[in-house]
C-alpha cells in the first residue's frame, strides 16, 4: 500500500469530489473528507520506526525518465510531524470555516483540501523537481483563498503573496537546474533526486550562488526579515482558515526547505552565509516582536509575532547542533499549534464583532469566560511558559544557539521577554479591565462547535509541553543525521578553511 502517495493525493482527489458536491452537502462532506485524510495519515505515525532507516515509507519510481526525474517519496521524523500537523489542522480549519466563510463554502473547502495535499507533497518529496512542483502548487489554492474569501484589500494581499513567492521560486528553479547540470557534469547521468544530488562535492563558489538562490526562495516563505512584508498583508486579509493554514503549515515549508534541501546540499555555503542568516534571524526576532507590540489590529499583532517566532526556528536550524536544530523543528510544530490557535481565536471574536481593533475590546473575560481561558492558555503557550509546548522549543533553541553563537543568542533571548510583553499586554487590553464597549456586553461565549476545534489544540499544547519526548524521539534521529552531515562535511571538505577564515565567535565555538 503506497501510504505516502495516498496521504498526498487523497486530499487533492477529495477536494475535487467536494467541488462537485452540492453546496448544502459540502460542509459535512468536506469535514468528513478531511477527517478521513487524518485517519489515513495515522498509520504513518504508528508504523514509523523511530530508530529506523533515514527515510521510511519510501516510494521510488521513474516519472520523466528522459530527464532522470523521479517520483520519489519518503519521510523522516521531521516530515512525519509536519504531515500530521497538516492533516490534524485541516479538519479544525474546515470546522472553523462553517461560520466564518459566508459565501461558497464548497469552493473554500475544495481549495483547502487541494492545498492540504500540495503541502503534504512538499514534505514527502525527495526529488527536487517533484518538490518544486508541489511547492508551486501550494501557491495557487492559497492565492484563491485569500483573493476570494479575504477582507477589503484581499486582491492586493493575494497578488503580493503570489508575486513574492513566485519571484523567489524562479531563483530556486534556476539554482536547481544549475545543480542538475553539475550532477551531469560530475557523473554523466541525469538526476534530480535529492539523494543523488547529495553525493556531489561542489566548489564553495558554486555552492554559494546556488544556496543564495534557494535561501532567497525559502526565506521569503519563512518569512525572514527583510522579505517578510507580504506576510502581514496576507494574514490580515486572509479569511480565518487561510491565516491558520498559512501560519500553521505554509510558513514551515520555508524552514523545512532549509532543513531538507538548502542546508544539506550546500554545507560549505552554510558556513559562509550562516552568520549572515543568523543575524537576519535575530533581527527578525527582535524586530518582529517590537512591531507586534505597537499594532492596534490583533490579527496583525499575531502576524508579526510569527515573524519573531520563525526567527527562532531559523536561529535553531543554523546553530547546526542537535539541541538547536531539534528545538528549531519542535518550534515549527509549536508555532503551528499556538499561532494557528491564536488566529482561530481572533476569528471567533471577529465573527461576533466584525472588528479586529484591540481598543474595541476590553473586559471580554466577563462575558466570554471559556474563551478567555483558552485564549490565556494559548497566549502562555505562545510566549513559552514552562509546562506548555512553546517553552520546550524556545529553551532548546536558546541552548543550542548559545553553544554556537552566544552573542546573537543573548540578543535573541530578549525576544522572549518582548514576546511576553506584547502577548500579555494584548491579552490584558482585550480580556481584562472594565467592559466599556456596549457592543461587547451581549457577546456569546464559545459554542460547542468552537470548543470542538479549539480544545484539541489546547490539549496538544499541554501534551507537547509535558511529554516532548513523544515527538522528539522521532525527530532526533533525523536531526542527528542532519547535524552529522553538516559536521562531517566540514571535516571531509577539501575547502574547509579552518579557524583562520571563520568569524572569531564561530572559531571559538568550533574548538
Amino acid at each position, binding site marked *: 500500500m503506497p501510504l505516502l502517495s495516498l496521504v498526498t493525493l487523497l486530499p487533492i482527489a477529495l477536494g475535487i469530489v467536494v467541488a462537485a458536491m452540492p453546496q448544502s452537502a459540502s460542509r459535512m462532506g468536506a469535514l468528513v473528507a478531511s477527517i478521513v485524510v487524518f485517519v489515513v495519515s495515522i498509520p504513518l505515525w504508528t508504523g514509523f520506526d523511530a530508530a529506523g532507516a533515514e527515510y521510511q515509507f519510501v516510494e521510488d519510481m521513474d516519472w*520523466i525518465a*528522459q530527464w532522470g526525474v523521479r517520483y520519489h517519496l519518503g519521510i523522516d521524523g521531521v516530515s512525519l510531524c509536519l504531515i500530521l500537523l497538516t492533516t490534524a489542522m485541516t479538519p479544525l480549519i474546515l470546522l472553523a470555516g462553517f461560520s466564518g466563510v459566508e459565501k461558497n463554502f464548497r469552493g473554500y473547502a475544495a481549495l483547502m483540501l487541494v492545498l492540504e495535499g500540495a503541502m503534504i507533497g512538499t514534505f514527502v518529496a525527495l526529488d527536487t523537481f517533484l518538490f518544486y512542483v508541489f511547492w*508551486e502548487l501550494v501557491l*495557487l489554492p492559497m492565492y484563491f483563498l485569500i483573493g*476570494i474569501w479575504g477582507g477589503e484589500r484581499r*486582491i492586493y494581499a493575494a*497578488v503580493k503573496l503570489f508575486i513574492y513567492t513566485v519571484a523567489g521560486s*524562479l531563483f530556486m528553479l534556476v539554482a536547481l*537546474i544549475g545543480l542538475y547540470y553539475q550532477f551531469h557534469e560530475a557523473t554523466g547521468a541525469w538526476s534530480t533526486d535529492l539523494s543523488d544530488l547529495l553525493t556531489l562535492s561542489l566548489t564553495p563558489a558554486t555552492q554559494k550562488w546556488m544556496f543564495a538562490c534557494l535561501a532567497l526562495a525559502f526565506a521569503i516563505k519563512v518569512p525572514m526579515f527583510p522579505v517578510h512584508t507580504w506576510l502581514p498583508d496576507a494574514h490580515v486579509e486572509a479569511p480565518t482558515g487561510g491565516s491558520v493554514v498559512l501560519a500553521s503549515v505554509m510558513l514551515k515549508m520555508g524552514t523545512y526547505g532549509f532543513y531538507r534541501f538548502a542546508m544539506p546540499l550546500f554545507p560549505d555555503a552554510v558556513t559562509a552565509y550562516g552568520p549572515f542568516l543568523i543575524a537576519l534571524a535575530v533581527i527578525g526576532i527582535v524586530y518582529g516582536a517590537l512591531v507586534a507590540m505597537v499594532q492596534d489590529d490583533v490579527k496583525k499583532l499575531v502576524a508579526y509575532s510569527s515573524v519573531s517566532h520563525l526567527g527562532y526556528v531559523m536561529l535553531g536550524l543554523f546553530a547546526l547542533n542537535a539541541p538547536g536544530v531539534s528545538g528549531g523543528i519542535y518550534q515549527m510544530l509549536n508555532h503551528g499549534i499556538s499561532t494557528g490557535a491564536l488566529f482561530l481565536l481572533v476569528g471567533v471574536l471577529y465573527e461576533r464583532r466584525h472588528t479586529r481593533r484591540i481598543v474595541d475590546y476590553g473586559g471580554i473575560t466577563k462575558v466570554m469566560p471559556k474563551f478567555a481561558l483558552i485564549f490565556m492558555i494559548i497566549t502562555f503557550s505562545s510566549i513559552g511558559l514552562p509546562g506548555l509546548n512553546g517553552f520546550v522549543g524556545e529553551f532548546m533553541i536558546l541552548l543550542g544557539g548559545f553553544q554556537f553563537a552566544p552573542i546573537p543568542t543573548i540578543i535573541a533571548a530578549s525576544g522572549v521577554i518582548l514576546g511576553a510583553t506584547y502577548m500579555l499586554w494584548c491579552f490584558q487590553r482585550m480580556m481584562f479591565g472594565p467592559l466599556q464597549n456596549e457592543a461587547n456586553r451581549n457577546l456569546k461565549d464559545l459554542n460547542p462547535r468552537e470548543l470542538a476545534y479549539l480544545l484539541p489544540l489546547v490539549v496538544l499544547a499541554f501534551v507537547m509541553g509535558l511529554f516532548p519526548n513523544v515527538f522528539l524521539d522521532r525527530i532526533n534521529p533525523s536531526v542527528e543525521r542532519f547535524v552529522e552531515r553538516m559536521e562531517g562535511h566540514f571535516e571531509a571538505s577539501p575547502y574547509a578553511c579552518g579557524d583562520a577564515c571563520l568569524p572569531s565567535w564561530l572559531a571559538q565555538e568550533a574548538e
Partner: protein
Amino acid sequence: MPPVMDSVALAAPLVLLALMGVVLMVAAAVFRPMPKGAFWMASCATVAGALVLVALSSGQPANEAFSGMLRMDAFGNFFACASLLGGLFALLLTESYMERIGVRVGELYALMLFALCGMLGMAYSNDLMMVFISLEVMSLAIYAMCAIKRSDERAVESGFKYFILGAFSSAIMLYGVAFVFGATGSTSLTTIAHSLASSGGEAGTLLLVGVALLFVGFGFKVASVPFHMWAPDVYQGAPTTVTALMATGVKAASFAAFGRVVIGALGEDAGHWSGALWVMAAATMLVGNLGALVQNDLKRMFAYSSIAHAGYMLMALSSVSEAGAVENDGIGSLAFYMLAYVFMNAGAFAVLSLMTDEKGDDATDIAKLSGLGKSHPWLAAGLSLCLISLAGLPPTMGFIGKFYLFAAAIGAGQVGLAMVGALGAAAGVYYYLRPMVYMYMKDGHPEIAQDGRAKLALGVCGALLVVFGLMPSAVLAWADVAVRSVIG
C-alpha cells in the same frame, strides 16, 4: 509511377489542404448565401484528415519531395501537427463566432485551409524559396482573414497594417534569400549547410548580410523585438478566431521554418550570428512581458504575451547555436514548448471568442470577465488553467516546457539569458493573474455566448495541458525524435 506522383504522395497533407481550399473557394462562389455548417464541416474534416495523414507518415524515414524543395521528416511532422492542431482549435471556435459578429462568407474557410497549407509548407520546406512561397501562401490568407469583417474599421485597419508591414518584411526576407544565394550558390538548405561546412564555417560578409535580412523577415513573422510593433494592433483588431490562428498555427510554422534555417542551413556559421539571437531573445522577453503588464484589453494582452513567448522560444534557438554547434536540447525544448503554447493559447482564445456575445460586441476588455468564476465556473476554471500554464506554473505543460527551455539555456551556458527570462516570467505571472482576479475576485454579470464547440476546444486543451504536464515523457520522446531527424 512518375517521380512527381511520389512527391505528391509524400506531401499528401499539403495537397489535401490545397485541393480542398480550391474546392471550398469555388463552392463559396456557387452556393450563396453560405449554407450553414457545410463549409465548417468540410474544413474541419480536411484539417482532421491532414492530421491523420501526418500521423500516418510519422515513423517513416526522412524523404525529400519535389526535388528537395520539401523534406518530409519527423521535425516537419511535429510542427505540422502543432500548426494543424492550432488550426483545428481555431476552426472549432470559428463558425459560431463569425455568426455572432455577422460574417457569413464561405471564403473564410477556403482561406483558412490555404493558410494551413502554407504553414505545413513552412514546416516541411527544405529550400529558402519554398520557405518564402509557403510564408506568402500563409500570410496572404491571414491578411485577408484579418479584414474579413469589412464593415469593422478596426478589423480592416488590422488587415491593412499587417499586409503593408508583412509585405515589407517579406521583401526584406527575399532580399536576404538573394544574398544567401549569392554567398553559397544555392537556396537549398542542405546545399547551404554543405557549402558552409566545406568552407569551415568561414563565411563572407555577403552571407552575413543575407542572414541578417533573413532574421528580420523571420523576426517579423514570430513577432520578436524590434519587429513586433504590428502584433498588438493586429491581434486586437482581427476577429478573435483569426487571432487564435495567428497565435498558434502561424507561430508554430514560423518557428519551424526559422529553426530549420538556423540549425539546418546556418548551424555551421553560428558563431557569427548567435549574438544577434541572444539580443533578440532578451529584448523580446523583456518587452513582451513588460508591455503586457499594462494592457486592459485581453487580445492586446495576449499579443504582448505572444511576443514574450516568442522571446522564450528564441532563447531556445539562441542556446541551439551558442556553443557554435547544434544542441539537441535547445531545439527539443523549442518543439515541446511550441506544442504547449498551441494548447494554452487555443484554450484561452476559446474563452475570448465566447466574450463576443450574440450582440456581436467583440471588445475583449478584461473587465468583461468580472464574475465569470461564479456565473460560468467551468469556463473560468479552463481559462485559469491556460493562464497558469502560460505563466509556467505546475502542474501544467507550460511548466514542463519552461523548465525544459530554461534547462536547455543553462545547459548551453546561457545563464545570463536564462536570468533575463526568469525575470520576465516573474513579471509575466502578474498579468496572467489579472484575468483570474477579475473572474474570481470581482463581481459582475459577464455576457458570455453559448457555444459547445468552443467549450470542447477549451476542455480538450485544458485536459491535455494537465495530462502532458503530469506525464510529459511521451511528448518529450516525440520532440526528441523530431530533433534527431534534422540534426542526425
